[in-house]
């Protein structure tokens, strides 16, 4: 790593002086907006096919038409969300080049092929989602079930390759920098399997299950509170809650692993996450509170806990922000507060999952109090907040670097004018896109579930 650090000065000299981009912050926000719009759909791509297939498997085993109605309905939801994801994903592909041309120009050859893998999975997903959703009642039950499996695998594989690129940006490797500053001896596999990849994959994979299950459960919990408590709604509530009660507690263990990797690989990011100003031996951890201008308001400080969590040793030394020049520090308030928000919400979701599990175990039934369902309704949006906060921690915590310790964002940004215009356009466009998607989902929800089972092959209106 140190040889790389010595080498990066000529790299930048070769790339030319950073262009003056007065709207760098807006460019970053625009990229964050597009990712923020896309990531919830990725969560559904990762986990929803598995849930749909589980319900279809229940139908194939029991022959209960309620399960078929649910699986079929969910498969249409899956298609609508996939279509929106295709559009937002296409925009992202353009945006990487349009906003960060110098990043792509210099580093594209190192990480780019991960996107080729993503493209492969995306292609498979598009093909089999068409077969699966349009194939209800036209393929044999067995063939139909099998045609759904590639969708589940592709959703995981596709997101995994993009996460690998993010891992690489945080922990770049798999290349050398020559004396003249050129990137040489590219080793694509080494770039793909960087040390950041493993925990990011598993963390995001579980997040995908948590977010999709919370949102789905949230919708049906609202219906439950309005008195719709038939078998269909019960199944639609129990399946995502079962997913949540497994994934949310597991995420706490994975989160610990992620934090320890960050502690080792990106100590500055960890310092920002905990707002640790100075390098400290036996560092405390402040739980809760809100960070403003170098101060944490509220919160409970627990002695030595940060050292214990980060290095599994209560007296370990934790590097503070003072280890790097001020210019190389991320904006602490964003990182620290986002991290608290993510951990807080994640913990509450895990408790909610355990509540559900307790009810199943003690009484074999759903909890009776309406407060449980009210909390589940809130859990959906809350899980989205946790998801976006988590990405804020990773990505804002990486600042000011686009390629960690090798290229700064201001060196990567385009010199093009009109970023505010593009930004405003995208805001309007995304509002419209989500508006249309919600409209279609709501209209789907207005059709009674029985219609899914009664429809003959010729009467299917797949995309309304």
């Amino acid at each position, binding site marked *: 790593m140190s040889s790389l650090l010595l080498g990066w000065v000529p790299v930048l000299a070769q790339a*030319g002086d950073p*262009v003056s981009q007065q709207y760098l912050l807006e460019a970053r926000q625009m990229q964050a907006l597009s990712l923020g719009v896309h990531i919830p759909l990725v969560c559904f791509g990762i986990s929803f096919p598995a849930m749909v297939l589980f319900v279809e498997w229940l139908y194939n085993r029991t022959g209960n038409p309620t399960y078929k109605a649910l699986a079929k309905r969910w498969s249409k939801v899956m298609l*609508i969300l996939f*279509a929106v994801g*295709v*559009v937002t994903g*296409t925009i992202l*592909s*353009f*945006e990487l*080049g*349009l906003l960060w*041309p*110098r990043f*792509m*120009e*210099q*580093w*594209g*050859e*190192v990480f*780019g*092929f991960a*996107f*080729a*893998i993503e*493209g*492969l999975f*995306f*292609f498979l997903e*598009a*093909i089999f989602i*068409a*077969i699966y959703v*349009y*194939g209800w009642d*036209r*393929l044999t039950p067995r063939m139909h079930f099998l045609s759904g499996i590639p969708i589940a695998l592709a959703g995981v594989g596709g997101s995994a390759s993009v996460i690998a690129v993010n891992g690489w940006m945080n922990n770049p490797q798999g290349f050398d920098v020559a004396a003249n500053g050129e990137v*040489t*001896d*590219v*080793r*694509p596999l080494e770039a793909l399997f960087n040390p950041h990849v493993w925990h990011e994959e598993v963390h995001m994979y579980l997040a995908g299950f948590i977010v999709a299950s919370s949102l789905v459960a949230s919708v049906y919990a609202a219906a439950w509170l309005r008195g719709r408590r038939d078998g269909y709604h019960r199944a639609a509530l129990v399946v995502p809650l079962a997913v949540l009660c497994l994934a949310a507690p597991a995420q706490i263990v994975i989160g610990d692993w992620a934090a320890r990797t960050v502690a080792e690989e990106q100590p500055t990011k960890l310092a920002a996450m905990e707002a640790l100003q100075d390098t400290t031996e036996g560092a405390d951890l402040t739980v809760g509170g809100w960070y403003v201008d170098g101060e944490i308001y509220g919160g409970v400080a627990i002695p030595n806990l940060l050292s214990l969590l980060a290095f599994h040793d209560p007296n370990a030394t934790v590097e503070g922000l003072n280890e790097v020049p001020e210019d190389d520090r991320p904006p602490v308030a964003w990182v620290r507060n986002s991290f608290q928000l993510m951990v807080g919400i994640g913990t509450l979701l895990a408790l909610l999952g355990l509540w559900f599990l307790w009810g199943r175990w003690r009484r074999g039934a759903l909890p009776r109090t309406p407060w449980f369902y009210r909390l589940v309704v809130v859990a959906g949006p809350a899980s989205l907040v946790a998801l976006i906060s988590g990405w804020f921690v990773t990505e804002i915590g990486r600042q000011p670097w686009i390629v960690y310790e090798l290229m700064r964002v201001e060196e990567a940004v*385009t*010199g*093009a*004018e*009109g970023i505010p215009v*593009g930004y405003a*356009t995208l805001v309007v*466009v995304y509002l419209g*896109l989500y508006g*249309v998607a919600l*409209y279609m989902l709501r209209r789907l929800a207005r059709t009674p579930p029985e219609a899914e089972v009664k429809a003959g092959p*010729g009467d*299917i*209106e*797949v*995309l*309304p």
Partner: protein
Amino acid sequence: MLVDLLLAILIVGLAAYAVLGGADYGAGFWDLTAGGAQRGARLRGLVHRSMGPVWEANNVWLILVLVVMWTCFPRAFGPLMETLYVPLFLAAVGIIFRGFAYALRGEAASISEARVIGAVFALSSVLTPFFLGCALGAVASGQVPAEGDPGIPFSSWTGATALWAGALAVATGAYVAAVFLAADSVRVEAPDLTIAFRRRALGSAVVAGVMAIGGLLVIREDARNLYDGLTSGGGLAMVIVSGVVGVLTLWLVWSSRFEVARYTSGVAVGAMLAGLAFAQRPDFLPGELSLQDAAADDPTLVATLIVLVLALLLIVPSVAVLFRLTLQGRLSERFRPIVTPDDEADR
């Protein structure tokens, strides 16, 4: 050698997008020009039905092109995106608008809503291929400097060659779409639509053909190097292939053999793009950046190639299954005319 192979893959991806994506956009063009009466409703119904199960999949080709470009030719991709950001951003926005206008087709609650949605769908169907074509034309006519220049956001893609390429992209899309839709109308046994789309295919074939040949004169004035490339060696060979196959397709459509014509129309478009690539060899950005200088190191090229071969092995059988099911009518939506409030009012 490796570089040439990946360039060839880039061209194939571009051709696939021009044909399959182009047919998608072209269908929107026919939607735009279908008229408002009963006949228009049937035309729109077929457009809707034919695009149903597969329309999202076509964006895969565009993404393939972008990914191969930034991975294998990163030093061309950077300047290209930085210079041509206006048409490329507009194309990207067009893709979104088209996506949701398509989803909302036939959903309007009032006549004015139907008109707005229809207009958005049709306009984005025309403008997206136009801007992408302009960007391609700008590259081919040497408007993109090797270091990239965000200071020429409009002049870079509004030269004669670029505008011509944009218009040609719209025309070829319309033509390919008419051929595809004619073949589809045979499948749903709608002879009136077969006649309608056969006529449209023949008409747009002539328009696209005249534009392609006339374009050579434009290029001769506007981008002499490109013209020389297209009239000698491999470039000329590809132009001839494209012309011959184009005429063959015209004859196939004339004699109502639409299924074969689907494939030959693809070959004609592909040859046209290959001709462009031959014409600007050995450069990626003509006069500015050679293919070799634009390209990534060999390990990256090899890795990408391996992924693409794997993709081919997985995707070809999958696509074969999808097409077989679609052709057997086991996935298609039922054909029904798109009824807008306009038509309801007519009744």
